[in-house]
């Protein structure tokens, strides 16, 4: 092994891959087979970068050579950077050796497009195939599907990978046209459609035949870059909602644009990465997936932008004061979930614990409710409750004044929700 050369390749190809924010390794259920290596289930963050993101997978490009020229991408054809390419065997060796040392959950392999879509995709598939068939590797594999690759290759990819993803890149077609003139939205939608169909079919077959091989058990995901073009949060979230609903996506990732190029179509190079906005989008996404919110409740024509000062749940609550206050000892779980300051776990605990005795403020606090926020929206077993007739704006001011430090902290956290 030529250590220096491998090290250089790794540096280049990990660096080029890092702008893809997805690093999840959960949602699969691949068991360790025949005393082989590894398994994939819940996904573990083995480390964290200095910017606080989870490191779960060996996330690299097979190559950063690319025939396309997408403006937002460091690997674009006309960018003057060092290029490199791994061999199939090199990626396999790195994955196995990192995995055995418990550094990673598996591999996330993407690539610039060299020659054409099929040529590139074929190589990605070969890495996965080798890991699964020659090394009995059962860890997590996420393959990027190259837009325009043939259906046979996509199908083969699904047989070896846990997750496949096609990045939408831009929230709208217009945004894509502007920044990635070589790309075509339909080329991204087609493989998603194909994968959705295959995944459903595979699930059906599994019900009939136990031995049906797995097909992308962790499903498919996508990523949108936010802040490179001018889409509103409403457009971003509606697009996400559309893909969740119509393509059974497991996750949509939002990647705050990191300036990589001086180009009049893009924000200037010294523009800050929109981290707060990114965080709010994840919170809104969470509300749609786990808290029973409809996308139009979060953003709509009157409120096309998420409030950067407060989280979207609080923001919804103060716009809908007619719903509150609710009685914590009687209200449905669904309604309790909508109270600012009460998260998923606390809500479930409340519903379980109130069977024993009515809950007062003390108990709610013990259960983990953020009383200083929830108190404006609930009553409980106590004579004390908010009697003033406060407007949503008043409440927002009170909460912000009281928990200034907390909000500053929150904005630094990517996925710390409610």
């Amino acid at each position: 092994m030529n250590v220096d050369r491998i090290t250089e390749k790794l540096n280049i190809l990990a660096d080029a891959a890092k702008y893809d924010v997805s690093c999840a390794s959960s949602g699969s259920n691949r068991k360790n087979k025949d005393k082989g290596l590894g398994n994939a289930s819940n996904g573990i963050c083995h480390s964290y970068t200095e910017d606080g993101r989870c490191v779960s997978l060996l996330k690299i490009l097979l190559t950063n050579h690319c025939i396309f020229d997408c403006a937002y991408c460091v690997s674009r054809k006309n960018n003057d950077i060092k290029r490199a390419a791994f061999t199939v065997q090199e990626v396999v060796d790195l994955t196995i050796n990192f995995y055995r040392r418990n550094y990673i959950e598996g591999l996330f392999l993407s690539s610039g497009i060299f020659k054409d879509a099929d040529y590139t995709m074929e190589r990605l598939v070969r890495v996965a195939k080798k890991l699964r068939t020659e090394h009995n590797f059962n860890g997590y594999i996420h393959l990027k599907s190259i837009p325009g690759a043939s259906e046979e290759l996509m199908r083969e990819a699904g047989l070896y990978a846990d997750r496949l993803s096609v990045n939408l890149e831009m929230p709208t077609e217009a945004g894509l046209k502007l920044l990635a003139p070589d790309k075509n939205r339909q080329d991204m939608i087609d493989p998603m459609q194909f994968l959705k169909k295959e995944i459903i079919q595979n699930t059906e077959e599994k019900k009939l035949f136990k031995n049906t091989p797995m097909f992308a058990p962790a499903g498919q995901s996508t990523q949108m870059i936010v802040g490179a073009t001018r889409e509103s949060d409403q457009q971003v979230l509606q697009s996400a909602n559309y893909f969740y609903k119509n393509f059974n996506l497991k996750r949509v990732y939002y990647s705050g644009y990191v300036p990589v190029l001086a180009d009049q179509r893009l924000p200037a190079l010294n523009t800050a990465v929109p981290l707060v906005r990114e965080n709010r989008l994840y919170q809104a996404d969470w509300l749609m997936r786990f808290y029973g919110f409809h996308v139009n409740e979060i953003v709509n024509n009157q409120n096309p932008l998420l409030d950067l000062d407060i989280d979207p749940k609080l923001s919804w609550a103060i716009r809908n004061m007619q719903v509150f206050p609710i009685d914590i000892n009687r209200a449905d779980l669904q309604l309790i979930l909508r109270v600012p300051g009460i998260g998923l776990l606390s809500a479930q605990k409340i519903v379980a614990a109130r069977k024993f005795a009515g809950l007062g403020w003390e108990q709610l606090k013990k259960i983990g409710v953020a009383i200083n926020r929830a108190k404006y929206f609930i009553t409980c077993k106590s004579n004390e409750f908010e009697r003033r007739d406060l407007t949503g704006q008043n409440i927002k001011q009170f909460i912000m004044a009281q928990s200034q430090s907390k909000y500053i902290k929150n904005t630094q956290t990517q996925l710390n929700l409610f």
Partner: protein
Amino acid sequence: MHTLVYDGTFEGLLTAVFEIYERKLYPVKLLKGEWRNSALFEEVIPVVTDETRAGRVLKGLRKKLSAAGVQRLYISHMAEIAGEDCNVLGFIRHAFDSEQNIEEDYANRYVMRLSEILKMVRREKHRMEAFVRFQKLNDGTFYAAIEPDFNVLPLLIKHFKSRYADQKWMIYDIKRNYGLYYDLHDTQFIEMNFDELNRPADVIAAYSEDEGIYQNLWKNYFNSVNIVSRKNTKLHVRHIPKRYWRHLTEKI
């Protein structure tokens, strides 16, 4: 106030519960450790661990709690968190003194405390599953040292055994001086003697040839994935508290 001193085992704890009910001791304080009758003002009752008595209490608990509930109780005790014995005891008493199953009675302080303890223990277990860094030794065994806040090594068996089924490995808790060894068939607990002949430094000499190479590649990878314009040290340290760094290849 009666003070009970027991040997720290789960059976010992259950025996203590037996004594408390049998002799109607209330209020009580439960301490782990050797029984010394000097310098103590209260009446100190040594608990002699008794399997039959412990067994009877366990049987009673099984009637009051679900199987998962008993398991959770066991784990909370096994974690050996200083000063929590009284809360574990409080939970057991609350279970016995109530008509219905109290596992979800979160408004009760003992039930709540136990759920907090479990949360802490689980977090530590997950951290270990994440932060173990194996190093390959000459004989092909993958070795890792850990120093968890609580005693979680026994909770790691299932995860590591089903994941690393085709390599020999050892995870050693150097704080509590015992380890877990997997020999391709089964796991067993072992104690190592780091005496003159067997110092940690010699373990380093026993690293396989390519160990250093992969450690360096991993460090390189870790540095390459960082996005400088997003730097957030506070968040970083919250995810990986500094006390874990000394065993993390990428942070050494």
